[in-house]
């Protein structure tokens, strides 16, 4: 069994998740939590900590061009997310600011490459930001997610009002947060990025709001399985589209 404290990088929710019965798996330079939850949890309302997964921000007026140059699928459309080949998302927060979220495998090689390859002298006018560290990363999945958010957030996140890949930069439980709708496997799902220093407080608020709907903490594996399945499905659809009938 992996000891999360044996890694240099640790989730700000390590102790809280341990208390909730988490087990840990190695994931790159850190460990990620799995929490046993019934399969139905993900249909209704499930909350997972994805903070150990890689993510990276870029900010500056040349950001969009710089991202395109690096092969990121993105447009200068604020508050819109773009799915990347192989999973992962590019969140456009402003005409000059993005956050790149890795896929669920936790493979951060591409993001590392982008970070390590960046040079201040390149005059691209884009600057990396340590979003791994500044923001905790939560995944909220299930039909009751919008109803739960309605208790802690003033933005209308109902499924028919807040479309897939929409972004809201808003206050959640009095905390600045970035909410991204990114459905998986036909399930309404959100990513939430919020101040890492307030991660424990934020998790408490989420769990409290979710209680009314039977929301449960879940782990990385359950979400990874759903996303892998979804990716496979997308891949098949893509193959079918290009194969002659």
């Amino acid at each position, binding site marked *: 069994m992996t000891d999360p*404290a044996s*890694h*240099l*990088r*640790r*989730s*700000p929710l*390590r*102790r809280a998740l341990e208390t909730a019965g988490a087990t840990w798996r190695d994931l790159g330079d*850190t460990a990620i939590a799995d929490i046993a939850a019934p399969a139905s949890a993900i249909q209704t309302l499930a909350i997972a900590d994805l*903070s150990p997964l890689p993510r990276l921000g870029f*900010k*500056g007026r040349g950001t969009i061009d710089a991202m395109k140059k690096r092969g990121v699928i993105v447009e200068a459309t604020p508050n819109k997310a773009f799915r990347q080949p192989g999973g992962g998302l590019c969140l456009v927060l402003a005409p000059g600011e993005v956050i790149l979220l890795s896929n669920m495998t936790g493979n951060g090689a591409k993001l590392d490459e982008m970070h390590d390859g960046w040079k*201040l*002298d390149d*005059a691209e*006018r884009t*600057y990396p*930001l*340590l*979003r*791994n*560290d*500044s*923001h905790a990363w939560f995944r909220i999945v299930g039909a009751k997610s919008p109803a739960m958010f*309605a*208790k*802690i*957030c*003033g933005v*209308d996140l*109902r499924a028919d*009002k807040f479309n897939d890949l929409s972004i809201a930069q808003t206050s959640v*439980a*009095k*905390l600045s947060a970035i909410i991204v709708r990114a459905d998986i496997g036909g399930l309404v799902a959100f990513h939430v990025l919020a*101040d*890492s*220093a*307030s*991660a*424990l*407080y*934020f998790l408490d*608020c989420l769990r*409290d709001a979710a209680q009314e709907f039977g929301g449960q903490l879940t782990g990385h594996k359950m979400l990874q399985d759903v996303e892998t399945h979804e990716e496979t499905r997308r891949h098949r659809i893509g193959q079918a589209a290009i194969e002659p009938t």
Partner: protein
Amino acid sequence: MSSPSSSRIDKPGFGLLIDRTKPLTFSFDKRIFNGYQGDVIASALYAQGQTLLSRSFKYHRPRGALTMAGHDANTLVQVAEEPNARADRYVLSNGLAVKSLNWLGSLENDLYSAMGLFSRFLPVGFYYKTFYWPNGVWKYFETPIRVMAGLGKLEPRAQHKYYDKEYLFTDVLVVGGGPAGLEAAIAAAEGGADTLLIEEWAQLGGSLLHGRLGGSRDAADARRAELISKARSLTNLRVMTSTTVSGLFSDNWAAAISCNRLYKIRTKQTIVAAGSFDQPLVFHNNDKPGIMFADAAQRLMRLYGVKPGSRAVVATSNRFGYEAALDLLDAGVDVAAIVDLNTASDGTAAGAVRARGVRIISNSTLFEAKGGNRVESIGVSKITGTGQTSGTLDWISCDLVVMSVGFAPALNLASHAGAKVVYDDTINMHRAKALPEGLAVTGTAANIWSEDAVRADARAAGTRAAALAQGKPAPDATAIGDAEATVVTHPYPIFKSAKGKDFIDFDEDLQVKDIVNTIKDGYDDIQLVKRYSTAGFGPSQGRHTNLNTIRIVGKETGKALEKIGTTTYRPPLVPEKFAHMAGRAFEPVRLTAMHGRHVELGAQMMPAGLWMRPAYYGDRGNPAKSIAAEVKAVRENAGIIDVSTLGGLDIRGPDAAAFVDRMYTWTYEKQPVGRARYVVMTDMSGVIIDDGVACRLHDRHFYVTATTSAVDQVYRAMTWFNAQWKMDVDVANVTAAYAGVNLAGPKAREIVQKLDSNIDFSKDAFPYMGVRTGQIAGIPVRILRVGFVGEAGYEIHCPSGMGEALWDKLMEAGQPFGLKPFGVEAQRILRLEKGHVIVGQDTDGLTNPHEANMEWVLAKKKPFYVGKRSIDMLAAKGITRKLVGFSVPNSSAPVPKDCHLVIRNSQIVGRITSVVKSPTLGKSVGLAYLPPDMCETGQRFQIRSDNGVLVDAEVVPIPFYDPDNKRQEI
């Protein structure tokens, strides 16, 4: 124990809300009562003959149910810990402990009721005139008045309950689930709009629940079933029952309450279909228990299956009184007479009543009621003019008086949203006009009463709102007139009695003469009438008071009622608990990456803004000992403190140096890469707002630290100025991205050198105020050689996700060197011994750098920095205080405290900002603001310490500790 069914009506069509198969038991004033599931407290009490529910506010008069809708103060009771619950809306549950309010002795025999005998000594506005003379007498009145006044009791030991809030969003919000509201909501939903219908009762239907339609109860039932069926079939129509909209605000924002939750609703269009409020007939003793509005009697019967009395007199001026009489007859209540204020009685309804043998007395009014704790008989008199009677009384014995003499449209919510409310003398009621955009009113709230007109108007309102909400073309709003509105409300149902006790306002015990005397006292504007008389001040919020008050003002002043205006309706419409407004408290707390380690090490945590920081490590019992040990460790070996809460800003781009140069007072353009420099930020008025260190990591990259509490302000200022200056630079607040520790003490270098690193920590390679980036123990770091605590030290910043690992590595490496963690308290001592200023503690909201003795950090040759012009002007003007160091020569003198005052010739001339008994120096040292002429080294002054003890102090140079800075630069 009383029987649960003594006054119950055992017939079909009565008791819609109760389940007779589920009996409940509760107590009222410690007596056991029964009820049924679905009952409210008042209905269960009435069912068992308990019609006395409360005592009035001022005269302690007996009071019973008036509205059965929670609209009045007559039914206020205490339910366990909850004060002022409304017994006519509070749903019964098993074991409920209910107490009546506001009496001495017992509810039935209230000794305070003797107050009524002294009513002539308690005229309107008496509290403005009495108890204030002779001087000082108020305190003798205050205690008994406070005992007698007020209603429910706050229970300080009440258990906290869970309340929360929820946002709702909709295209069209319809307030009121009666016939008009349902019709409007259905039309809006059929128009394709996302529609939300909110109804305060548990069941939809409004007046259809208890009243008649076209004179028929069956028609009302059928219509209600039809509307509900249609509403339920619409998937885009959400219905919330048992929910009350308590306020409408600007930007289409509505507040609603249901149980323990406050809903915050964003809507595009709002339709108010809130109905109307009954208005009382005013006559002598019109407040006796047993006297109630017609629809209150109907609610008791239809909703709860309770007979409101056994022999009734109905006073009315419209069809609703007659319809209530029919319901009473159907329920088995004897109707002794109908007293019709009109000359000609309402045709259809009157005919049905007359056909059942009920006596109808036309052109007459009730003039006086008799009885003790319940009405026993009623005196009827002929009307001879406006508010005038013949004086001859025809007495009728009864235990129930039912009133329906008029209405006031429920325009409170419309008024909250900005609608004007004006009096219309063609209908003897107010109406809404100049409705704000996005608001419509329909149903009786819009003075539309007849069934066909209600249907047409409500449907039109719903269709129009749906179109507008969806950005579609919408028909203009057209007013649908309704002739019935002219015959539902009597123009002057007020019959002043020479004996008084003709109540205008039941909450405040205001009689007709009180309003008359208010005007005689000179307060003839309606707003002043309200404030002087307190009419409408009570829990009813004027629902049953305002209209009659305006009528009296009109009569007494001779003004037309439409010229008098109205008082202002303000939210909330219904009482909101503080708990509703507070909801589930959201109080963000920020924890550093090392927080868990601090707790494991026994740290006593303290708040620092939103952050939690270790105050000190060790037992709460002896903090001084723990803190002294931490100071000693830093001075003699090494200490480590978590400084992750410090702000961090990355400033990157070609103009980074020029930008920092503009934002801070010193010079940074030529600062070498790899060096750190102290920074002070001032605002445009020259006031110090922050300090920190600017680290040049690259020609185009500064990493600037800021104080814990000011970093957000600094970031805002930087982005605000950069938006104007348009410099080629990016500013990022990276506070949460970096954790930080300060490793300080004579053994700090040895400790850090024990860890694998690509950084050369030798003195020459990494001098004081140097900055390096690299890795320690595999962790990427930014390291600053700074000396806040006056010892050799390394402030090590790393990605916050690795903060705990960095802490672990350093603690392990430091173990052989006696490394100890230290907290904020020890750091305060250490920095003060070194004479370092803390912005916000040693400066205030007016301190400029000259006053703070920081001229050295002001660049003289720079053409600009934020605040420079103001600072130059302040310097030219001359300062009135200066921050200096001081010590207390007498080591046995009391230790002054922060903010103790500096005294000269008995005058306050300065204050202490920081002071400590230095464990290192063995004496008290500190910083203080003194007048410029007292700032010379060696000058003596006095500090007024606790209990006025004057402590002698002396101005001394700073730093107090290691004045040559040898220790921090080793």
